[in-house]
């Protein structure tokens, strides 16, 4: 064992270490510098091993000095590492740069038919008013479509419907329903009053398709039967619907009209906030003969019915001028709604 340990150039180690840390160009580079400067085989660690050769009184001073250098170097290392990591992250993120506008726009989303959208919306409005939704078949008996609705065989009004008859059973006995009103009869026969229903559905007329007529279209029918129902209940219900569907500022009026299945009968118009009128549909107090056909006693119960076109409301809502679009199924049309 020698008396005097070789002098440790702590300042040199520190300065050399700081210089190498500062010179490191990447976190990987810094990792190898770390080994050289503070690693197990570094001069600093070698120097620590030699501390044992010092006199105890010197050992403490030298140890402290050595630890100071180590702490300084480690702090420099951490600082440099953060610096380099930040640069490297920035470089990496920059290398990942995307032009997000390059992403193709083509997306296929399914669209509900505009008539279905109007249909659902109408159902929802009436459900909100406490109504149930009733249904009936497209091919109907002439009894449900006409006779039960106070349009007996030979009645001139029967023609106005320009009925399409189908070859099923005795000639003239089955037909494509010309209106949703047969659902009134089916509902009355199926349930006891009070009745509050709407019946949306597809209806058929012997008509040539043009911009405003289709041989197949959609109606919604309303039927209320309860005790003491009057013309005022009809007018109020139409008004309540008008406000609920079109919005505040819309009002309605009834004016006399003729339908075989209602008496008194009326046409109902909706007034827009700008004062203009929209003729919407027909309505009236259910004719006593119709109540009787549905098994309802007209002395005990009274009721009203109304009906209007769903397609027409869809046309208004979406600004559709030619209703032939409704059955062409052009995807360029359907995908707009």
């Amino acid at each position, binding site marked *: 064992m020698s008396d005097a340990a070789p002098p440790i150039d702590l300042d040199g180690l520190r300065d050399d270490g700081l210089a190498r840390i500062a010179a490191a160009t990447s976190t990987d580079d810094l990792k190898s510098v770390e080994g050289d400067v503070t690693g197990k085989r570094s001069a600093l660690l070698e120097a620590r091993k030699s501390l044992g050769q010092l006199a105890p009184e010197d050992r403490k001073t030298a140890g402290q000095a050595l630890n100071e250098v180590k702490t300084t170097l480690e702090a420099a290392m951490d600082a440099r590492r953060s610096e380099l990591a930040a640069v490297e992250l920035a470089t990496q993120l920059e290398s990942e740069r995307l032009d997000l506008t390059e992403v193709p726009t083509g997306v*296929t989303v*399914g*669209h*509900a*038919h505009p008539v*279905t959208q109007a249909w*659902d919306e109408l159902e929802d409005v*009436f*459900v*909100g008013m406490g*109504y*149930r*939704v009733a249904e009936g078949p497209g*091919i109907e*008996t002439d009894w449900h479509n006409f006779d039960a609705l106070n349009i007996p065989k030979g009645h*001139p009004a029967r*023609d*106005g419907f320009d009925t*399409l*008859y*189908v*070859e*099923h*059973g005795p000639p003239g*006995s*089955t037909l*494509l329903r010309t209106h949703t009103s047969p659902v009134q009869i089916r509902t009355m026969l199926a349930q006891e009053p009070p009745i*509050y229903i709407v019946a949306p559905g*597809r209806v058929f007329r012997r*008509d*040539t398709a043009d911009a405003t007529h289709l*041989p*197949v279209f959609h109606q919604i029918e309303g039927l209320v039967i309860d005790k003491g*129902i*009057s*013309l*005022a*209940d009809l*007018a*109020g219900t139409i008004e309540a619907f008008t406000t609920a569907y079109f919005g505040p500022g819309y009002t309605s*009026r*009834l*004016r*006399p*009209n*003729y339908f075989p299945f209602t*008496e*008194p*009968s*009326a*046409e109902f118009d909706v007034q827009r906030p700008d004062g203009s009128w929209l003729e919407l549909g027909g309505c009236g*107090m259910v004719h006593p003969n119709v109540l009787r056909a549905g098994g309802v006693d007209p002395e005990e119960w*009274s009721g009203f019915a109304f009906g209007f076109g769903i397609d027409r409301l869809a046309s208004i809502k979406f600004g559709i001028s030619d209703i032939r679009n409704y*059955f*062409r*199924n*052009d*995807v*360029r049309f*359907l995908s707009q709604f």
Partner: protein
Amino acid sequence: MKVLLSWMQEFAPGIDGDPAELAAQLTDLGLVVESVDETGPAWDGIIVAKVLDLAPHPDADRIQVVQVDTGGASALDGTEYVAGEPLQICCGAFNMAVGDLVPLATLGTTMPNGMEIAQRPMRGQMSNGMLCSGAEIGLDDDHDGIRILDPSLPLGAPLAEALGSTSDVVFDIDVEGNRPDALSVAGVARDLAAKLGVPFSFGDYAVAESGAPAADRASVTIESNELCARFAARVLDGITIGTSPQWMQDRLTAAGMRPISSIVDISNYVMLEQGVPNHTYDLALVPDGALSTRMAREGERITTLDGQDRALIPADGVITNAADEPIGLAGVMGGASTEISDATTSVVVEAAVWDRMTIAWTSRRLDLRSEASTRFERGADPMAVERALDRFCQLAQELCGASVAPGTIVAEGGYAPNEPIPVRTERVNLILNLSLSTPDWVALVEAIGFECSNVTDAGADVLIPSWRPDATGEIDVIEEVGRHHGYAKSGKRVPVPEQTGALTPDQLGRRRIRRAFMAAGLSEAMPMAFLAPGDLAAAGLPDDGIRLSNPLVAEESVLRTSMLPGLLKSVAYNQSHRATEIALFELGAVYLPGEWSEESPLPEQPEQVCAIVAGADASEAVQLLHRLAADLGLDLQIVNDELAGLHPTRAASVIFRGRPMGQVGEVSPAVLDAYGVTGRVGWLQLDVAAMLAGLGSVPKMKAVSTYPSSDFDLAFVVPNDVPVNDIVRSLKRAGGNRLRSVDLFDVYPPNPADRPDGKRSLAFRLRFQADDRTLDDEALGKLRDACIELVTKRHKGELRG
């Protein structure tokens, strides 16, 4: 129905005031006014001018240069002219002669169509106004020639003054089917007068009678009371047939009828005014003046006024002569054999009311719809025939110099006078939400001719007038009360149901199904349910669709049994318009042929939901099915199958709860070809009722295992004809309840064409998990072996290395 204000005022002078307000009152009565036109004032600036000279235009073949004399009248813009001096007009018509009086629209005139008349050169020749056709000034329908005026008119006078046409208002009313009374000027006036609270009355149509009584010279007989309600006739002599006066022509024109000759015009005038169609016969051509009515007989024929020879059927009504030969088609059209002519001097004029349905069927069968048949179909007033004939005679006497034979001959037929019906005041007030006293509502209906008796607090007996065939019961009277009192006075009230509003589970389910298809990228289509004959066969389906009895066109004469043809047409339409991304679905009914019985008179009309995707092959269609099944929570299985209309080797039946409920695959290439569709087309068809049944079951939570799961992969080489479903089923059986999922992740070779040995490798990833413990290697090994064993044994599969 076009109604003139001045004409109504002859019945109710109190009808007056702002035309728009009157129109609003009519509309409020249910006599909806479609338009209000003021006539007369549109002739401002149009004068009577005389043609002085006609010369060809030097530079235009189709224009002639006309010199006219304005008679010294000024133009509307103030330009002054000297009487007798020629004023040059360029004119495109050639029908006038020198000396003719013609209507001249002077400078500054605005024509009824909005055109402004100004001085302007036409091909170099100055024109100082415009000569007018009858159509241009609304006098007639003639667009071609200039209207030549009566030579007796004063030259230079304003046209309106010269023709005695004063300003008037035309209400065009949309008369509903229940109001035949409103198909007459008097009927509309009666309703409006009552609404306005002004008096209404028919005029005094008394005529001076002379000569032998009508009954000695003519007779009427009704052989069929079902056909004819009442039949009346009068005889007139000494008739001079000419043109009717301008005022009558004006009124007929305004009402939309064309003036023809004095006697025809009077007939039409009476129909429009009184609502009773009538017909004139040349008395000389009716042996003994004998008219009879009966149903036609098989084989009978008649030549009608339009010169057509028509075969009659027993459903037609006819008017016959003394020889029992048809001389008129009742209520529809007169016969040619008794037609009046310029030589006619004596006529028998007849007014009758016919059975509505007979007239409706005959006019429809022969496609002969007329003003008369319309009125008979809706129901003319049987008690108005005498009045109408009186009015006819009065006008004929005044305008044609006729002498009228004494008496009206009337035959009573099937008309049954109405009996009074009780109407309860309580009921009136309940239905209309009013609190009227009996006298209140009685006054309203008496004003329109409903006679009331036994008026008490409780109600009254009401006699419905003969001109209201639509009204038969208490409720009809209540409607009249409401109509004349005003619907608005009933107020507005919203009845509140005790039930809560809700959609049924099925209705919500249909919305869910639609949303699932839309979420899968498909848009909703609504093809028409009508097909052309052969459409089903072209789609490879049985050609057994229910047929329409009376289709409008053959292309829409069969009801669909399948949505395939309609959706294929939609794809073809889109492809022909170069659309891409054609992916459509439809939810609706198909109509299946079947037996009819009185107990079940309607055919099956099941709801289906179908999808069609252009450019998609069968596997994409199956993926769509899986996606929908996952979205809707339905456990749908498929079984390879051969299905009509679909690709014979790329189709499967869809099974739900052990029952077939649909089909999936590709549309057959032959079908695509028939519909002009290109590329592959994926197809999916599902029964909505079955789906709705499945949607009804609410899933119950199963606890998620807290123990780790283990995956292993197994690949089998199996013959092509072993469906994957079968292997999956075997794996599930062997794996038991610890097999949590089976995923087919590789098929090799993917293309069946690359499998010369008829086999393919199927690689599955199986995930195992227990609810109560971690599965150890030994347990997993046993499960693995069980899976391998079952697949190799059952499906001739070999485990792949």
